[in-house]
């Protein structure tokens, strides 16, 4: 790709037939010129799309309607192609299908540059691109699927009608949901078993003489394998030519930013600074903290200490919910001093790192609270640690006991454990949210502990709702003369009432 200043050039026509299908294998890199603005915009938008793919993939099973609808909405809002027809009317203000496909093509290649450098980045990128591809291939019509296969040289032979008849019972018994009728209607492809490992491994396909007999509706798995192999190889090649690209000063900062971006609310800008008081933390931990933070808070209270991993995860979370630096200092110091650490040692050893968290030391980076992904995937806890994600890192038996001690209903606990078994940790936490707040549907897709807190506070009405309840109860108490509470509606009283309600929610 050539990068010229800020000029936009016309696209060469030889590329136009690359865009005659809405889906592609990204075999050929784009050849046209592109402005830096477009470069950045395309890349960021694709990254948003991939992040959505990632989040939805964790929150919903990938074939359900909810998943499909939500992903479709994202496609529309970000202007990525997913429909099969090329409707190239140039309607002003609306991106043409052609332009969407071009964006798809170019943005993929830009992100390759950003994500080829390390094993972790590559793995992440391949996983999201595969999920994206699976979704887009899945919604193609049968005709378009076949078109795609032929266009991309996946020369798998179709099984003749006679052979299908001969193998009828065996084919029907190998694939779930295949009836005699679909057997006749569907095309079957003969694929070497090495190209169909996922189906072989789970015994979901008929094998004969080293070939798997794949019905046309399963061919996506095969195609995905091919996609993964190609992309994996391509990323390795890209990594080798990366130094040349990185030497371009216009691109280097952008690429670096892309591979570290957490696109979405990062809770780095605290909206409620100073609105939480330290006394509220204990009750809040039972009400509105996600399980990981509740766990950390409890450990801190019990042991008067937390190790580094725990201090980071919990400390940044507290910053995210609105604690000021002064409050944080007071909070940690008062707790540590109850333990083995005296005030002096605290000031020497721990105060620095707290100020660091708030960006007041060293690089002065204002660290952002950890997202769920970060908590689940990095820095697993060892003996003596309390950080991490309890749904991911706790032994299921211990998790069960803990949930029982928090008085979660047994049915709910089972649901949570099922989700944990399926590795849907964020969904399990969402379920925990739903059970502790007594709601059917959390109403949001959990991917950040601070998001849990915010949503919880929203649901519980924060300070406002409780005040209203208090006023209502006071009004009703005004009538009977033998009311035990004085009917005053001043704020101070409301505050005290709130205190009582808080203790009602407290679990210990």
């Amino acid at each position, binding site marked *: 790709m050539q990068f010229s200043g800020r000029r936009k050039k016309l696209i060469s026509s030889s590329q136009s037939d690359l865009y005659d299908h809405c889906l592609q294998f990204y075999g050929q890199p784009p050849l046209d010129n592109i402005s830096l603005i477009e470069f950045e915009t395309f890349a960021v938008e694709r990254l948003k799309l991939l992040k959505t793919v990632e989040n939805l993939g964790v929150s919903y099973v990938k074939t359900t309607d909810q998943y499909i609808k939500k992903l479709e909405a994202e496609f529309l809002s970000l202007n990525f192609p997913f429909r099969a027809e090329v409707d190239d009317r140039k309607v002003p203000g609306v991106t043409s299908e052609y332009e969407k496909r071009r964006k798809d093509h170019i943005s993929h290649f830009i992100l390759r540059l950003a994500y080829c450098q390390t094993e972790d980045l590559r793995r992440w990128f391949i996983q999201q691109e595969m999920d994206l591809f699976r979704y887009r291939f899945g919604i193609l019509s049968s005709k378009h699927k076949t078109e795609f296969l032929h266009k991309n040289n996946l020369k798998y032979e179709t099984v003749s009608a006679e052979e299908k008849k001969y193998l009828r019972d065996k084919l029907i018994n190998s694939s779930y949901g295949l009836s005699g009728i679909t057997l006749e209607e569907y095309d079957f492809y003969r694929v070497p078993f090495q190209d169909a*490992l996922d189906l072989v491994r789970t015994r979901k396909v008929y094998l004969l003489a080293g070939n798997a007999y794949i019905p046309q509706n399963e061919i996506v798995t095969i195609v995905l394998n091919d996609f993964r192999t190609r992309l994996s190889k391509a990323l390795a090649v890209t990594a080798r030519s990366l130094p040349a690209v990185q030497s371009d000063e216009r691109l280097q900062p952008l690429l670096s930013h892309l591979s570290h971006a957490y696109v979405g609310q990062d809770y780095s800008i605290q909206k409620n600074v100073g609105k939480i008081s330290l006394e509220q933390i204990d009750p809040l931990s039972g009400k509105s903290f996600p399980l990981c933070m509740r766990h950390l808070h409890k450990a801190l209270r019990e042991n008067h200490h937390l190790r580094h991993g725990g201090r980071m995860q919990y400390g940044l979370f507290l910053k995210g919910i609105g604690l000021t630096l002064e409050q944080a200092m007071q909070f940690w110091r008062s707790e540590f001093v109850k333990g083995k650490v005296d005030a002096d040692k605290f000031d020497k050893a721990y105060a620095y790192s707290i100020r660091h968290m708030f960006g007041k030391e060293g690089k002065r980076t204002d660290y952002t609270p950890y997202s769920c992904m970060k908590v689940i995937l990095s820095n697993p806890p060892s003996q003596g640690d309390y950080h991490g994600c309890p749904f991911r890192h706790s032994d299921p038996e211990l998790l069960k006991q803990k949930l029982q001690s928090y008085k979660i209903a047994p049915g709910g606990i089972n649901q949570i454990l099922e989700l944990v078994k399926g590795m849907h940790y964020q969904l399990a936490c969402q379920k925990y949210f739903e059970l502790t707040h007594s709601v059917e549907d959390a109403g949001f897709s959990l991917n950040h502990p601070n998001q849990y807190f915010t949503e919880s506070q929203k649901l519980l009405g924060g300070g406002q709702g409780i005040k209203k309840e208090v006023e209502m109860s006071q009004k009703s108490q005004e009538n009977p003369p033998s009311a035990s509470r004085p009917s005053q509606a001043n704020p101070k009283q409301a505050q005290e009432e709130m205190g009582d309600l808080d203790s009602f929610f407290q679990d210990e």
Partner: protein
Amino acid sequence: MPTSDYDSACLPDLLPLYYRRLFPFSQYFRWLSYGGVSKNYFQNREFSFTLKDDIYVRYQSFSSQNELEKEMQKMVPYKIDIGAVYSHRPSQHNTVKSGTFQALEKELVFDIDMTDYDDVRRCCSAADICSKCWTLMTIAIRILDRALREDFGFHHLLWVYSGRRGVHCWVCDDAARKLSVAARSAVAEYLSLVKGGEETLRKVVLSDPIHPFISRSLSVVEHYFPQYAIVDQDILGNKESVDKVLALLPEDIKKDLIEYYQNHKEPMKRWDRLRQLVDHKKSSSKKGGQYYDKEIMLQYCYPRLDVNVSKGVNHLLKSPFSVHPKTGRISVPIDLKELDTFDPFEVPTISLICEELEKPRADEAEDEDVKDKENEQEAAERRRIRDYKRTSLAKYVKVLDRFLDSMARSRKGEMLKKSDLQKDF
């Protein structure tokens, strides 16, 4: 029984004799060279040796049959393992730039170990085996051999008795040797039906539709089950084992059987009753597909393989014709044509064959100085061929010979095909 008492203390004396006069080096080399099609295939193969006093050495490699012989005769390994074919000579792996020394190819292997069946066999446990539980190996071989040939299209399978309590399978096809880790693990999982450890009671769960692989495997199991499980293992004979079987059944069937078993003691009748009840439940149930009886048969008989052994391209597995230090038995190839009569206790020990070697040869004419011009190696070779042929080892080397001939024929066929294609234009 032709064992001739084996004592592991004799190994230091017997092994040198074995490696000098009996180990079938030329067949071994012929096997691992695979027709010389790939350059340095033998030279880049890793072997590992366990020497006296449990000294373990890896990354052994040899540049020729001669070097292999000399080294083995010098080091006198107690155990020999075969590993992968690497990108470079394993013995020089330290000189290779870090990251470039890689395992490239290896046979697809399977290891069936009798201890993995301890929860379902009553006759023995741990390292012990007997003729009663050996049937499990027969069943395993039949099922896996069929699947690997018919489902996966492999042709060249060498089944080997491990020398103590199990069997190994070496799949030697070209395509098999080139399989990736993912492919090997997929094959192993396709072949796995018994899942779960100590805390899992029901280790086999079947649901509709029943995959053809399962149906085929079931028919093998059903063939052996009555004699093996009901008679030999007597799984419905006493309370303890009956309880284990009942634990795999739903409450209603269990209750009925407990009552029935009060009055009926004959195991075969008990089994028939069990099957009847399951059948009845299936036909009267709307849920369809309930296969408790088939699940029981599979749990008691279906092969249990260790996926980890099959997965790794660089995994080291005991070599055929190595000696098992604990039993003294030679790890010999199994002739599938005689599978039902194979008896692990008839497999020769190193003491036996060394003894047979010393027996005076009444029927052979001794021609030591036939050809003056023949060189040292050829002479040693011919002597060796005469030697092992006099021992019980002979028939097992023949099995390997036939296996190698068949591979050679295959390779020739491939080459003809290729040259035909080339001649086309």
